């Protein structure tokens, strides 16, 4: 009995400790921002690694998600004789939810895991300690550009996802299923609001950008410096990112779109 309680307490304390370390790391990362703005070269490299290299998977997923939404939406809407609202349905679900969330999940899997493995291996092979030996702060020098690279890349990728998705929905709806072209766009423009829907989506993807890069970097920086530790950290990075994104998405949706 007491043993179970002690185990529970230890687990809770460890979780809190972990959270504390993560926040200290975040403060360190943010502290490197002035340096990074003075010398933006590493940021460009990281935007290339995290953003440019994810474009293909994000665009292809967006296209297919949009096309599936077009097919399924048409199926449901035609039962009510409201096929014209297909554009509105596709665009609302993409801009509000699927764009930011699916992009965040894809980036967590494609770039977040790579970040964790990279930082974890740097730690395991004592590269981070070597930087410290040379009086270079590894957090500011190595982690800060990666963090802001993810933060910049995420909203842009989400916007591309939504755009390509809308086009996929348009292709299926207007091209294959014969929905009226004008009604498709006008219903969309009529129903989607810049202030509420679009800005909400951008805020979401910014939050997810912070979340995914932060979790990936922390898991790498906090990994046990062994091959087992790095593999565990990489797994944890993807799992935690996905859970955090989905959970926080609910909270953000309730805050921004809930009545």
């Amino acid at each position: 009995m007491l043993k179970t309680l002690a185990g529970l307490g230890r687990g809770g304390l460890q979780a809190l400790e972990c959270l504390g370390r993560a926040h200290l790391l975040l403060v360190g990362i943010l502290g490197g921002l002035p340096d990074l703005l003075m010398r933006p070269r590493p940021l460009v490299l990281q935007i290339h690694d995290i953003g440019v290299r994810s474009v293909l998977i994000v665009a292809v997923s967006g296209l297919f998600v949009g096309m599936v939404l077009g097919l399924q939406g048409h199926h449901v809407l035609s039962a009510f004789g409201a096929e014209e609202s297909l554009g509105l349905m596709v665009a609302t679900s993409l801009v509000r939810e699927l764009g930011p969330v699916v992009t965040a999940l894809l980036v967590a899997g494609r770039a977040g895991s790579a970040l964790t493995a990279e930082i974890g291996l740097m730690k395991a092979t004592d590269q981070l300690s070597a930087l410290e030996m040379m009086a270079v702060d590894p957090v500011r020098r190595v982690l800060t550009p990666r963090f802001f690279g993810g933060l910049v890349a995420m909203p842009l990728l989400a916007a591309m996802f939504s755009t390509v998705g809308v086009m996929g929905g348009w292709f299926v709806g207007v091209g294959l299923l014969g929905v009226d072209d004008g009604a498709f766009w006008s219903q969309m423009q009529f129903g989607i609001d810049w202030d509420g829907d679009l800005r909400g989506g951008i805020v979401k993807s910014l939050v997810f950008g912070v979340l995914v890069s932060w979790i990936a970097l922390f898991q790498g920086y906090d990994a046990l410096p062994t091959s087992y530790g790095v593999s565990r950290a990489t797994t944890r990075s993807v799992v935690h990112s996905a859970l955090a994104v989905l959970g926080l998405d609910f909270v953000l949706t309730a805050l921004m779109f809930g009545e």
Partner: protein
Amino acid sequence: MARARRIEILVGVFMLAGCLALFFLAMKVSNLGVAATGDGYRLTARFDNVGSLKVRAPVSMAGVRIGRVEGIGFDKETYQAVVTLHVDRQFDTIPVDSFASIFTAGLLGEQYVSLDPGGEEEFLRDGGQIGHTQSALVLEQLVGQLLFSKAEEGSE
């Protein structure tokens, strides 16, 4: 050096594509492109009942969208709803005796304000008020009236 240059160019293209995507979403998908005209004038209309009219609902004339609902207030003196309409600058020839009604788009659609032009030579200006209005049809009231008239027929 060539590789570094290539990365810089790729990142530039990436940023540009992202911004273009945002621009596309703003202009083509959302109502920013439509409502961005911004320039226009305000009219007010008093209704006994606005039903479920919402702010930003369209204002149309002959079925063409000419503006949007900017605000819905309540006048506690007359117990009427005061609806502020924002009409685009180019549609500045609305006669002073025009008629404003609240209709529903389709059977279950959103409610909008429809303006029917009157016959006066004088036109409404900024801050003008539309005198003749017709309230929204509330389904429950209609059903109630129907039941009432049926009951009257039955009692005769």
